[in-house]
């Protein structure tokens, strides 16, 4: 495969969050930052390197707090890595995160218009696709009701339906697929299967079964580093084995 086919390239990515003891420290940092450091750094990611080819499906596993979400945020461009290089080519769709941005007072219809715009769709594109989105979500007359009346499952359906229509080249699916009912889950999996023929998939899940089924490669993140990468079956096997032995210790969340 030629290097032209690389769509995501991450080289030694590290991300530090600045933790300030007080807001006064933040102000001091802004004014006197050149001379002294007033914050503590929390390194959510320490050293992550990987490459994703076009059409590849990469699974990302790791325990809570290992840095998966931070990594996804970096790939989406929501936050920047403190060190290292990230290179992403193509339109990224973060599936389901969108559900969190729904405006509860507005109707499903209005939220499709706003959500589509947030994802970068043009107004006419959203209108063109509206019927198809409503059809995919399959929530019927609820489309004209305020989102606050929706169940969690219905919100997920609508969020996924919007993402499924944005012609993304890179799809990022973060856990939460399990919210929908079996029929809808199947619909999503089918859609993702179809998407994989043309697009690149990043799949984050604690369900090793789903991961093995949808991905061909995987990386296992542990403590902000890639602990193992490669063929999905091997990574999943190693991950399962490790979780059986390693205790769920609190020290993983310590911020130093």
């Amino acid at each position, binding site marked *: 495969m030629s290097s032209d086919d690389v769509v995501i390239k991450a080289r030694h990515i590290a991300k530090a969050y600045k933790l300030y003891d007080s807001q006064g420290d933040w102000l001091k940092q802004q004014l006197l930052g050149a001379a002294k450091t007033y914050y503590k750094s929390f390194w959510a990611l320490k050293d992550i390197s990987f490459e994703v080819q076009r059409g590849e499906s990469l699974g990302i596993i790791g325990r809570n707090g290992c840095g998966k979400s931070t990594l996804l945020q970096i790939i989406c461009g*929501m936050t920047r890595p403190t060190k290292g290089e990230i*290179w992403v080519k193509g339109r990224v769709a*973060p599936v389901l995160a969108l559900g969190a941005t729904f405006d509860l007072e507005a109707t499903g219809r209005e939220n499709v218009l706003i959500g589509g715009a947030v994802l970068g769709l043009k107004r006419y594109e959203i209108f063109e696709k509206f019927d198809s989105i409503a059809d995919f979500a399959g929530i019927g007359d609820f489309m004209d009701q305020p989102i606050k009346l929706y169940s969690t499952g219905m919100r997920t359906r609508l969020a996924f339906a919007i993402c499924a229509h944005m012609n993304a080249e890179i799809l990022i699916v973060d856990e939460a697929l399990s919210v929908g009912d079996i029929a809808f889950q199947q619909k999503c999996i089918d859609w993702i299967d179809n998407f994989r023929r043309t697009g690149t998939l990043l799949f984050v899940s604690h369900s090793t079964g789903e991961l093995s089924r949808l991905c061909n490669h995987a990386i296992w993140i542990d403590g902000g580093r890639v602990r193992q990468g490669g063929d999905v079956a091997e990574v999943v096997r190693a991950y399962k084995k490790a979780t059986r032995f390693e205790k769920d210790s609190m020290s993983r969340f310590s911020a130093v």
Partner: protein
Amino acid sequence: MTRLIHRQAPDAPLLHVVDGKQVVPGNYNLVQRFGLFLLEPFTGAWRHRDLIAAILRRELRERFSGSVAGWVWAVVAPLISLVTYTLVFGGAVKLPNGNPANSPIDYALFVFGGLIAFNFFTEMAYRAPSLLHEYAHYLKQTMFPAEMLPVISTLRATTYASIGLALMLICQLIFGGTLYWTVLLLPLWFIPFLAFLLGITWLLSAMGAFTRDTAYLMMTIAPVLMFATPVFWSHETLSPVWKLLWYANILTGFIEIIREIVVFGELPNGLVVAWTVFLSSATFWLGYWFFRRQQDGITDVI
């Protein structure tokens, strides 16, 4: 679908960050980089125009559809203040700047013009510090262009200010009997004013994201600023040295200009215009520069 992807491929967004810095494709020298930076707010707003329109539409709907009377409130509030000034100052034969009053409503219009500009400013100043907190879920969960939030919020406030301005022109027409041709210059007044407000909003919203003190600071400063700004009086009665000092407050220039073109039908002083335009452009790009510099930190702290 494949065809669609290929059609989009050339202008597909490309993210490339090295050591916390966005890599700008292509080789540019310092001057070109500076030029690109100056253009950035405009190209950004154009690229995100559909998003800006969608959010703005929702905000306006939210503001006016939650109440029974809706848009009526937006008209009634400035109308009442205009009527109040007319009743209070109706008997005045002399305007604050010493000019004779041509009609009973002249004094009220004089004050009202200043008030439109000042209220527009305070609305932005009060809201900006909490602006990014309001949209935290967008900023954290989606690839939302945070630098466009101040644009949306300024445009939103523009609609209220326009209502007040329209009311002012209507009253001028009815009671003054005529509109001066200089009213046509109003759009030219609006452009630097919006630029100034945008700059301020970028600055305050970025600061407000880090510390709530920004909001308290504005709540303390704004009422004081009201008296440092010639809303109810005219600085033309001051001695020349003091007069110059007042122009350090950019609102003075804007208020003076709007009065001259709407109430008096005169062309504003060229020097005042140049100074005001200079200050507002500086605020605009400084604010934008500050916001962009803080932007990465903003998503992390909000």
